[in-house]
């Protein structure tokens, strides 16, 4: 009689990915650095559904009745606020992390769709300014590429306190991407690992930031809207303090928001999901009487018009996309599968953007690779995608009976999971239960 065997039992705690990472760390002596945002599954907009009209509300005709999508950003203090056709903007991504053609494609696509693009940690290029009708210029801790000429030719200024992938962290651009042009823009020796600071060099805390923002307004003669971008971690207080510091617009980036390169442990473990960040931020604006006066732009994992509609229904004024825009212009396209395989990965999972070997020619400074991206065609794809997202959001808004996407409200939503119900502050589907609603 054979002895019964205990079947092999994989550990849920020490799963294949975990053990591979332990072996990798032991072999290399460096933490894993990658691009993108959190890849783990977290409560997200998919966990919400929209309550279309029926007996209790009536819908608008899908293709006949107006449903507007425009948004004004920055009319609290600035003399020249932005007026965008759609409530979807392109998030900050640097020249350096992205190739010149990729930045041009983003500018072309956004301009066709009537919205804005944003610079990144590396300054403004002429190509980017030239191809973006509306361009937001980031003021980052590193101040790479910061100068008053670009400050004045920007349409808005975004003071970056943090980003969703790494609230509280700085950046790391490895030597492979510090090309002569990138090095010159950042005043760095070519080919070294660039360490970006996590904190601004000339102010600490919201009281100082108020003075800093006043300086930026003085330099630009009070014309440009000033955005403050924060990574989602304590959204109620961060939003309230941004308002106090004098922001025209608050940009709130959840943990699914991407980055060019950061420690994977940071991306996956620091910050909170986008879904969980919106309601506390909106509550802060309401408590200060500033909702719809200081605009809230939400980013981190926005992929479709449904995500747009749900974010707006929760109280955002606009959303911003980064990763999705890169996919739209060709990032991780299966047509490069053989080359992704050669890099030890597969289309859809390629995230070693910092290594500069992107087969799609987007996250690279390699002159040969970047030739693969046609900025005109890629810009058109981005414009198509932005228009599809907008039409999808309009479709949902009309189904709820709204003639502007900003009229979507939390009452148009319910949640499929208890977690999402608690985070979004909407009832679990089929109930009137909002977990945690009795606690502030």
């Amino acid at each position, binding site marked *: 009689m054979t002895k019964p065997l205990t079947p092999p039992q994989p550990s849920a705690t020490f799963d294949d990915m975990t053990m591979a990472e332990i072996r990798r760390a032991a072999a290399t*002596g460096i933490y894993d650095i990658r691009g993108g945002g959190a890849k783990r599954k977290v409560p997200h907009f998919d966990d919400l559904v929209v309550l279309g009209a029926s007996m209790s509300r009536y819908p608008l005709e899908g293709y006949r009745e107006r449903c507007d999508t425009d948004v004004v950003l920055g009319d609290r203090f600035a003399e020249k606020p932005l007026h965008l056709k759609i409530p979807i903007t392109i998030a900050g991504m640097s020249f350096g992390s992205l190739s010149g053609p990729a930045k041009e494609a983003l500018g072309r696509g956004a301009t066709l769709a009537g919205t804005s693009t944003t610079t990144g940690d590396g300054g403004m290029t002429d190509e980017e300014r030239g191809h973006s009708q509306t361009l937001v210029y980031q003021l980052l801790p590193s101040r790479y590429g910061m100068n008053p000429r670009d400050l004045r030719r920007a349409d808005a200024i975004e003071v970056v306190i943090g980003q969703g992938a790494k609230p509280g962290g700085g950046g790391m651009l490895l030597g492979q991407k510090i090309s002569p042009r990138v090095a010159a823009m950042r005043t760095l020796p070519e080919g070294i690992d660039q360490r970006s600071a996590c904190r601004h060099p000339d102010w600490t805390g919201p009281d100082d930031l108020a003075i800093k923002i006043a300086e930026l307004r003085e330099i630009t003669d009070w014309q440009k809207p000033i955005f403050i971008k924060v990574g989602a971690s304590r959204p109620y207080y961060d939003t309230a303090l941004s308002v106090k510091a004098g922001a025209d617009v608050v940009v709130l980036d959840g943990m699914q928001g991407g980055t060019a390169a950061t420690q994977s442990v940071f991306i996956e473990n620091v910050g909170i999901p986008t879904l969980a960040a919106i309601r506390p931020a909106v509550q802060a604006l309401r408590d200060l009487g500033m909702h719809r006066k200081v605009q809230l732009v939400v980013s981190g994992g926005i992929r479709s018009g449904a995500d747009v509609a749900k974010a707006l229904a929760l109280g955002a004024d606009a959303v911003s996309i980064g990763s999705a825009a890169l996919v739209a212009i060709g990032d991780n396209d299966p047509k490069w599968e053989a080359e992704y395989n050669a890099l030890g990965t597969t289309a859809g999972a390629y995230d070693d953007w910092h290594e500069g070997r992107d087969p799609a020619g987007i996250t690279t400074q390699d002159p040969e690779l970047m030739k693969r991206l046609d900025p005109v065609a890629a810009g058109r794809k981005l414009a198509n995608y932005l228009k599809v997202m907008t039409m999808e959001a309009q479709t949902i808004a009309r189904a709820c009976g709204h003639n502007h996407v900003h009229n979507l409200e939390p009452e148009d939503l319910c949640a499929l999971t208890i977690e999402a119900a608690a985070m979004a502050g909407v009832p679990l589907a089929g109930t009137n239960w909002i977990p945690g609603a009795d606690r502030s």
Partner: protein
Amino acid sequence: MSTTFDLAAAPLRDLNRALHAIGPGDNRTTWDIVNPRGAHSVAVGVTEPVEITVRGNVGYYCGGMNENATIRVEGSAGPGLGENIMSGTIRVTGDASQYAGATGRGGLIVIEGNASSRCGISMKGVDIVVGGNVGHMSAFMAQAGRLVVLGDAGHGLGDSLYEADLYVRGTVASLGADCEEKPMDAEHRAALAALLAEAGVEADPASFKRYGSARTLYHFNVDNADAY
């Protein structure tokens, strides 16, 4: 032609707008700013080669992002003096608070008194000459340019330094990560002598020690992890 602007009588916004309105060929080349009384953002974002004298103490960010202008503060300056200066000269006859010359890309800042912590943080090409002492973490992550200190430097001088040159005549409480003493050759003494002369400061270049980047953090190595 000299123009006097009284900050006790008109708002700061009017001052900066007037300074920004100056164009090439404008004859308002000399400005006297009176009653600053610690105001922030005095004479920020100026682009023309005008001469500005501020008669008293200023608050944060005086001369921020200056291009071409020559600014003289007859008093002391608050945090962020001449932040991100592009060119031109800023001189303070008294002391300066934190982050003087932060991220400055060009031009010259002269602080006749002492500067507080993080003087020259993340500097990218500016020259800063301090007549007295500088506080801790000065020239943190400095990328390019020169910081000259006639007095003493606080702890962590030049931490995570890139390619800036630091000259200190007095004592250094401690060097930051990846900062080391460098040889002071004839070429450095000559360059320092020229800079001291430009700053209008008398000191023997041979009495300074020079510090720069050891460049051990330029490429990540796990055996250097303790330095991060």
